[in-house]
């Protein structure tokens, strides 16, 4: 039963319940930053991860954008990879089998440019063994609606979730974009449309300029900002979402240390995804898991679940009780 004391020798329990999924710890890797897992096998034991989210998959292979595709910025980077991927057929044939052999939940990140593409993709993945959940990337332009990004409008976002929901029985995670006025509205719309969970956030729209060549530093002109720079934005978005919906939320954005990850959990996220930090330190996820364990030991907390959602926004004045007697002094 629930462990209440935590003797020094005990291993704290890092497992978390994420909707229907039980994860051995809340540390997942973010889509597009971990390839299909193989790329990192020299640096860590993939089975130690809470879950692996693979690079975004589309119905057909996509070549991606012309280079330059990335640029470094202050404590961050902008990418405009253009969602290059091998397509769902090659993914199922030559990427998934390796992951299926491992004891780690695999989340498949999917995207399309039309509702039909989303639906067909979800149908193809439905029932495939070894897939724990789908993560729906709604930060893509809707080509039928003049290129407006699905995830920036509650109705369009909900429609994507609906068609995916109809096409598969897999647990659904909707991945929210921060580039909106009220992220809570999108969160609510997608949950009402059948999303079991949310992940938050995708990259922040950004660009960089080279003053000598007078050109954008990315061939695509604009791209998505990620890395430590965006963590404060991601935390704010996560709180806004948590205030609006009651489903499990996965925090993403700038996570690079155990402290970063714990911040999202304290806020109320039930898991986190690590993205850009994998590029800087390919075994960072292992270090984050170990750091969380250390935190629980130091703070004498038996189960990580007991930290989730413990943010206290009320009691802001620690001296208030002991000090109120002072108010009527001189």
């Amino acid at each position, binding site marked *: 039963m629930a462990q209440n004391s935590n003797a020094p020798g005990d291993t704290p329990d890092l497992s978390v319940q994420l909707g229907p999924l039980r994860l051995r710890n809340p540390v997942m890797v973010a889509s*597009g*930053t*971990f*390839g299909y897992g193989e*790329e*990192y096998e*020299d*640096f860590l034991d993939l089975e130690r991860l809470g879950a692996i989210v693979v*690079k975004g998959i589309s119905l057909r292979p996509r*070549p*991606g*954008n*012309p*280079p*330059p*595709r*990335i*640029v*470094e910025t*202050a*404590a*961050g*980077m902008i*990418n405009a*990879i253009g969602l*290059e991927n091998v397509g769902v057929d090659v993914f199922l044939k030559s990427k998934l089998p390796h992951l299926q052999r491992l004891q780690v939940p695999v989340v498949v990140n999917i995207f399309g440019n039309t509702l039909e593409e989303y639906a067909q993709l979800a149908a193809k993945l439905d029932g495939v063994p070894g897939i724990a959940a789908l993560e729906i990337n709604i930060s893509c332009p809707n080509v039928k609606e003049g290129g407006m990004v699905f995830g920036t409008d509650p109705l369009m976002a909900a429609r994507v979730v609906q068609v995916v929901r109809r096409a598969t029985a897999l647990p659904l995670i909707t991945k929210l974009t921060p580039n909106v006025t009220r992220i809570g509205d999108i969160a609510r719309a997608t949950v009402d449309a059948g999303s079991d969970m949310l992940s938050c956030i995708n990259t922040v729209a950004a660009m960089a300029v*080279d*003053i*000598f*060549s007078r*050109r954008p*530093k990315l*061939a695509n002109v604009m791209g998505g900002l990620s*890395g*430590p720079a965006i963590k404060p934005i991601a935390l704010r978005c996560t709180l806004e979402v948590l205030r609006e919906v009651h489903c499990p939320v996965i925090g993403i954005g700038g996570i*690079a240390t155990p402290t970063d990850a714990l911040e999202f959990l304290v806020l109320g996220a039930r898991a986190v995804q690590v993205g*850009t930090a*994998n*590029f*800087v*330190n*390919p*075994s960072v996820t292992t270090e984050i898991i170990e750091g969380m364990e250390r935190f629980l030991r130091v703070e004498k907390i038996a189960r990580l679940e007991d930290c989730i959602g413990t943010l206290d926004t009320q009691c802001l004045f620690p001296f208030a009780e002991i000090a109120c007697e002072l108010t009527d002094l001189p």
Partner: protein
Amino acid sequence: MKIMEDVSVVSQEKVAFQTHLLRLSAGRISREARLGQFLMVQVRDGTDPLLRRPFSFHRIDAEQGVVEILYRVVGRGTWWLSQCDSGARLRIIGPLGNGFQLPQCGPAPVVAVAGGIGIAPMMQLLEKLAQWLAPSGKTREIHLFYGARTAEEFIPGKAFDTLGITVHWSTDDGSRGHEGFVTRLLEDTMRREKIKPCVVYSCGPLAMQYHVARWALENGVPSQLSLESLMACGLGACLGCALPAVNPAAPQEEHYLHVCKDGPVFKAEMIQWHKIQTHPATPPIFLFS
């Protein structure tokens, strides 16, 4: 096997204009590394700069457990790297990518082209080739076309003469050797001396590589070009280091290869040169003034 290793700086030395030679005690990586491969270096603790920087192996000495990189200070990352003293700790990842291949041909000469800091991955390769060819008794010539903006950028390469490597110097300002582009010197020399090399190795700025590629393609010379691109991971995960490439199965289609995984050494015919955008070159004038 890719390795993340915490290494210490054996020594750091300024060897030419804005050019440093860094010796690292990297026992594990030195044993795995091959010439033409590269490593990713975290030049400094913390988030400024955020990403690691890629550098080719300049020298690999598996016996001593030492690797060297030769680099030009061009921005924040390389500037901070240049501030490391002996004993400093650095986190490096390597060896990454595919190295150079040995030439697969008869007694035809070997040609190498190096532009500026492009000499870095080339020097030990040429030494090895010379040593390897000498005992074999083959009278094979090795030509190095070595270009720079000005003479003080050249790396002192004492070994060239003794190894019998013919060096063709060129500078933009004429301060040493041919005045003008090194690729022009290459073309002229090859035409004049009617040399038909069995391979051309090349490393340097993309604009130079383009001309080497064109010359190699026009003359049917097999090429091994070490190309650059902006990199985030070096591991094939971010897909950031793409170069427009020819898809042999569907030559008309948009297709990309990735420098960190498919390169950094490519054959000229693999790249769609007309689609390459050089990454913007920001002269660091504000950084260092």
